[in-house]
């Protein structure tokens, strides 16, 4: 399924960026300049485009050879597996050019540290969306209130908030069903996500209940649970939340108004903070201008180049969209790694491939259209050749026949056959003309054109003589008959 391809593609792209950012953002036990150098050498923008395209091509070639060697990865869906495997081997193909150090180092670096949420925040900063000059209230942006891009926890939190605000569990269902449909998450992950959202929601409720003496979820929660059961979620996992919900449910409360107020307040806050985020962004020591906020994408020179190519006004929207897509991908891939769907190593591989794939796509876009191999081959070519040789052969045969005829004894019989032949041919031609007359009358066409027919037949006769199909005297006989009509 294409969507599964997308999902995988998405995830790995995220991982790529994640790792790249991590090398610069995460303090790791074994981090050293050497590692960075090695890694940077891999993806520095200084590498000429040609080389990268060439590498992309060779990666593709390596893919074909590597593909056969791959064993099935331990993934859920078969087709996803194949794509996975393919991309993986693509990565391997590329990897074969690296030193062996790099993978090991990456693994060390890549331990996702769940306990320290600030780390992920820092990571996100590296490609702060605000620096790209996007409107704060752009509905397509995917950022925190404070302007930093979202993390996995943030997303869970956001969903929980949304459900709470809208008092509609349908929000979650919509999101999750779409994610499932696109193959971005598996059923298990959906369950986990549900659980996390439920927890977050519960916290929210509890917090708000404490703050505003609001207790209890609405009857939505019961529906929620029912729907969750329908989704076939792990009932065990659900036990705790359910129990909690039940307790809260008993203590129904009003104050949805207050909730709404909170919502409004939040919205206002959001509206108030654009400037803050801008400031914050610059305060955080990123000395580059919004334009150069893309500097961190130097690890993805082709993506960078693609963005650069979208520098006209009508491309702005697309450009921004692409940037936010990239960032969102990163966040989601982090989430996938967190959920243990993919190993960090695999994620890294896909990240590495991301730019290569962008190179390929860019190349295609640049007008190097894919030319199908020329299968026209045998039929067309051979016929031409055959016609040539046949014409040659016909000429030779004519000469040969002339020679033969002069010596063979059936020379006289040729002459005596002539009247017989003429009769036969005349008979045949007459039949044709009769048929033409009748046929044209039946079809309501105009009467056949004798002179046209004669011309056509003369032409054919000449062609046949040339090819050695009929002898010259036969041809003359035929022409004579036609001219006599």
């Amino acid at each position: 399924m294409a969507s599964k391809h997308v999902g995988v593609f998405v995830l790995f792209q995220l991982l790529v960026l994640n790792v790249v950012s991590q090398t610069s953002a995460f303090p790791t036990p074994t981090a050293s300049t050497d590692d960075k150098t090695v890694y940077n050498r891999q993806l520095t923008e200084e590498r000429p485009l040609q080389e990268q395209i060439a590498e992309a091509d060779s990666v593709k070639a390596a893919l074909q050879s590597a593909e056969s060697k791959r064993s099935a990865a331990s993934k859920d869906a078969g087709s996803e597996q194949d794509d996975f495997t393919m991309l993986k081997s693509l990565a391997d193909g590329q990897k074969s050019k690296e030193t062996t150090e790099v993978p090991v180092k990456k693994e060390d670096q890549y331990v996702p540290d769940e306990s320290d949420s600030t780390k992920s925040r820092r990571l996100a900063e590296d490609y702060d969306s605000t620096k790209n000059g996007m409107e704060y209230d752009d509905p397509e942006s995917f950022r925190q209130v404070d302007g930093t891009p979202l993390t996995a926890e943030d997303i869970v939190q956001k969903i929980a908030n949304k459900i709470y605000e809208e008092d509609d569990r349908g929000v979650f269902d919509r999101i999750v069903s779409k994610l499932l449909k696109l193959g971005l998450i598996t059923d298990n992950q959906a369950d986990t996500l549900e659980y996390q959202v439920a927890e977050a929601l519960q916290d929210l409720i509890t917090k708000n209940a404490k703050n505003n003496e609001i207790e209890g979820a609405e009857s939505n929660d019961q529906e929620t649970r029912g729907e969750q059961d329908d989704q076939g979620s792990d009932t065990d996992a659900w036990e705790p939340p359910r129990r909690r919900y039940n307790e809260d449910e008993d203590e129904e409360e009003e104050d949805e108004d207050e909730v709404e107020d909170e919502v409004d307040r939040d919205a206002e806050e959001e509206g108030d903070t654009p400037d803050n985020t801008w400031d914050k962004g610059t305060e955080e020591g990123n000395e580059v201008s919004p334009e150069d906020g893309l500097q961190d994408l130097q690890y993805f020179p082709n993506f960078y180049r693609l963005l650069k190519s979208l520098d006209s006004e009508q491309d702005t929207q697309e450009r921004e969209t692409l940037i936010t897509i990239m960032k969102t991908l990163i966040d989601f891939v982090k989430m996938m790694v967190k959920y243990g769907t993919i190993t960090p190593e695999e994620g890294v591989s896909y990240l590495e491939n991301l730019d290569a794939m962008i190179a390929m796509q860019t190349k295609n876009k640049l007008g190097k259209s894919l030319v199908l191999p020329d299968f026209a081959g045998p039929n067309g070519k051979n016929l031409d050749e055959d016609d040539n040789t046949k014409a040659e052969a016909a000429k030779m045969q004519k000469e040969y026949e002339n020679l033969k005829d002069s010596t063979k004894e059936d020379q006289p019989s040729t002459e005596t056959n002539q009247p017989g032949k003429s009769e036969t041919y005349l008979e045949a031609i007459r039949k044709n003309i009769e048929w033409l007359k009748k046929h044209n009358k039946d079809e309501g066409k105009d009467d056949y054109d004798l002179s046209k027919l004669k011309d056509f037949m003369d032409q054919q006769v000449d062609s046949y003589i040339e090819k050695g199909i009929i002898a010259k005297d036969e041809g003359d006989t035929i022409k004579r008959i036609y001219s006599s009509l």
Partner: protein
Amino acid sequence: ASGKRGRELRKALVSVWLQCPTITRIYTIGESFEGRELLVLEMSDNPGTHEPGEPEFKYIANMHGNEAVGRELLIYLAQYLCNQYQQGNETIIDLIHNTRIHLMPSMNPDGFEKAASQPGEIKDWFVGRSNAQGVDLNRNFPDLDRIIYINEREGGANNHLLQNMKKAVDENTKLAPETKSVIHWIMDIPFVLSANLHGGDVVANYPYDETRTGSTHEYSASPDDVMFKSLARAYSMYNPVMSDPQRPPCRKNDDDSSFKDGITNGGAWYSVPGGMQDFNYLSSNCFEITLELSCDKFPNEDTLKNYWDQNRNSLVNYIEQVHRGVKGFVRDLQGNPISNATVSVEGIDHDMTTAKDGDYWRLLAPGNYKVAASAPGYLTVIKKVAVPYSPATRVDFELESLMERKEEEREELMDWWKMMSETLNF
């Protein structure tokens, strides 16, 4: 073609052409060893052109020069089709409009001359059989049976076995010029169905001709055994002599134990290596059977009318068999034809390939099939088809290239992003 009978053949063909010039064309595929033209009369509504989707059919006779009945029958057939067409016979009109029919009355004109030149009425059993070089043309084709049997055991291609066909043929000194010409012909035109006409017995013979173990008699089924039996029967059933279960064998001691309903598997009858029939099936998309049409190889002229009566309906009905199975086009998403794409049928270990216009024809007996179209650089598409006896079921394929799929994924990604942001609305 020089020589008296050669001129008569030419005269007959030219007469048909003169009578029906809009639906016929005479051409030559090459020369015999002694320089006689290997003439073909083509019949279709657009002679000289392959119309995309229109199946190509051929009859070849007289590859053994002394087996003369087939040669005469094809001349009769040409005259018959032309006459019937002009007289408004709808079956024939349809057939000619929807098929491109090629008739080669004599593949071995040199041999024929030799056989015909014998004095007296009784012709020798062997004189004129081989070509002017003494080559038996029906043992002269590259032996692809051997290769397919190896591939069956060890894995390998199941179709189009002659690699680098043109080169292999041109450089092969063992091939007679008649053989070479026919091989080129098979390479040039995407024939779908064919039969080659012989004499000396009365039966419809189908692949494989060469036995797998090398024994002299052994049923040697091809992957399309079911279809071939159906095709052979389609001929024999309209020939009262061929399909007569009470018919005594041509010669007292003949072993016709393998004949059933007027048909026989080649290997079961007797092993023939290097034959033209199997060569067609294993080097191209063409299904060919061998028709033995007379106990007497070179009977008297006055018997020809009888033979024509016996075979007329069979000859026409067999041509109609080309309109069976599935057929269609394989194209890319932009509608461009993909030539040399592979069309495979689940359960039948023999694949077809598409011709220049992306068109293909896959003969199949009635049943339910899964048909797949594939080509390098494209994603394979599989379709389920219920195939009746006839006519052919049209099944087209649109193949997505791998690059397109990647592009599609990118677009889906953008859509997903839009959806996400709309849903979450942050």
